[in-house]
């Protein structure tokens, strides 16, 4: 996937909101393909996307999208990008078709856009809904429509800011199917997420924490660099277990014993011929990006509580106080 020309190149981007430093000298090179920006809430992901999409002007540093500077040619950059925002941004009172038609006009596609719209609606499976007002659509369908809208003007790079947040598992999977289909058509993706499962699927992952870019690479590479695999064994022979723990320096996890190793295959190649007969159950746990994140930041990604606004939203969705 990786070719010579970077799709996107950022150099020492810095951005602060008043006293808060949201991005601290972030430099980034995004090759064509699927790139994930992983980090907890408040890490600066949306700010970075805002800068790349030229919605915010960099206070320091510079970025280029396909060689076009975000400072000097923001309109050219905008033409090359497709955007899916974190918050919904459809006109609920217009129909599905009208929303797309509006997009086509403001992206300079002119009036001959009916065919392209039909094509996109086909792709995100909303063709039968073309004349329905957007407010009649479910949440997942709205997201699909936003995705379709973002690719309408055939952007080279799609920026997605937490595109699956707040969706149920089924809708989420569907969005992913479309994203894969798009990749097949040669559209590159840059996606921000705080979900590891999403980042795992990327060609490249960059980890952002507290405004700093702390690591970047292929997911397997990161795991190899920063995490060790664990082998969990359940043995029939308790004495053997004791002995192994002493010799190999493992640990106990309930009934089982575990060993950390960077080379699980080699470990097993040595272990199995000797003690294979005593093994009742065996599990190899490869390091996840979660482990990588934990190692790099000292904090777990999942433990992050929802931020205030999300908490309020969740509360409101339950119907607030009155319904209890």
């Amino acid at each position, binding site marked *: 996937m990786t070719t010579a020309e970077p799709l996107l190149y950022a150099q020492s981007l810095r951005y602060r909101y008043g006293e808060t430093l949201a991005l601290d000298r972030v430099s980034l090179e995004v090759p064509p393909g699927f790139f994930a920006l992983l980090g907890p809430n408040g890490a600066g992901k949306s700010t970075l996307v805002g800068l790349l999409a030229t919605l915010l002007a960099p206070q320091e540093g510079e970025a280029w999208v396909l060689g076009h500077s975000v400072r000097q040619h923001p309109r050219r950059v905008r033409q090359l990008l497709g955007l899916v*925002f974190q*918050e919904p941004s459809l006109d609920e009172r217009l129909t599905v078709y009208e929303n797309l038609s509006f*997009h086509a006009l403001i992206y300079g596609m002119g009036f001959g856009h009916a065919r392209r719209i039909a094509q996109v609606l086909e792709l995100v499976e909303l063709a039968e809904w073309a004349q329905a007002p957007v407010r009649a659509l479910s949440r997942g369908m709205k997201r699909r429509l936003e995705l379709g809208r973002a690719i309408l003007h055939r952007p080279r790079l799609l920026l997605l800011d937490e595109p699956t947040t707040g969706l149920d598992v089924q809708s989420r999977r569907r969005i992913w199917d479309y994203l894969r289909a798009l990749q097949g058509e040669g559209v590159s993706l840059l996606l921000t997420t705080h979900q590891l499962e999403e980042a795992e699927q990327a060609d490249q992952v960059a980890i952002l924490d507290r405004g700093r870019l702390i690591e970047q690479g292929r997911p397997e590479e990161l795991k190899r660099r920063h995490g060790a695999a664990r082998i969990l064994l359940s043995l029939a022979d308790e004495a053997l277990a004791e002995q192994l723990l002493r010799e190999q320096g493992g640990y106990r996890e309930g009934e089982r014993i575990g060993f950390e190793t960077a080379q699980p295959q080699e470990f097993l190649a040595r272990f199995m011929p000797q003690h294979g007969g005593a093994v009742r159950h065996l599990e190899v746990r490869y390091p996840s990006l979660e482990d990588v994140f934990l190692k790099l930041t000292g904090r777990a990604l999942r433990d992050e509580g929802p931020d205030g606004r999300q908490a309020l939203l969740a509360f409101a969705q339950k119907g607030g106080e009155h319904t209890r």
Partner: protein
Amino acid sequence: MVYFLQVLYAVWSRELKRSLRESGQLMGAFSRPLLWVLVFGVGLSPFFRTGLRETSFLVPFTYVQFIFPAVAVLNIMYPAVQAAVSLIYDREFGFFREVLASPAARPAVFLGKLLGGASLALLQGLLVLLLAPFVDVPMPWGVFLACFFPMLLIALAFTALGLIIASRIQSFEGFGVFANTLILPVYFLASSIFPLDPSLTVEQQQQIFPPWLVFLVRINPLTYAIDVLRGASIGFQQFDPLTGWLVLGLSTLGLVGWAYYEFNRR
């Protein structure tokens, strides 16, 4: 240039589609002028030529005729300021991001928004002119055209005013309060529903009306806008026509410029 016009068209037509689908607004557009013409106009007509009027100046028209142009202006003002609600709505519900993140030129977006709101306002103002035959205001094409231009300017001015308020105010609630405390006084203090007698000097007016009232009416730009429209529709003007056009033209220009500045600031 073509692209500019396409963006303008997209934004303009969206404003129209959204509003025309909102039945509540359309109801208001019909019921408001009817209410004014029927209840105020017909109800107050008998009082118009009695009392102090006999001693000063004999007005050659009925009260309904007098307030008719002002009712048209009222029907322009409401929807024009409504255009601002659409801007707040866009901001609140995220649609604005779609527009602001696009390569579309800002001036085109602004003009689309302004003309969209103004078109709707003008349409509703013109709707009132349909009532003309029923209130004895003859409306041949010449008169209609003479009314059209001041109405267009008034629509632009108030849409611009609405956009300014919307840029300055953060929430729907705040907007409602602001709009009501601004619109109604401005309207009532524009010699819309009572004349300042043209045959009287300022000193004489101040003997009939309290001085503060005369002062407020005279400094209100809308007074002159309504006056121009009244001149066009029933041939009666309390002030110098040239002054009227000047005030109307300059206020419109000023408000549109200010609105553009506010729009670009964010």
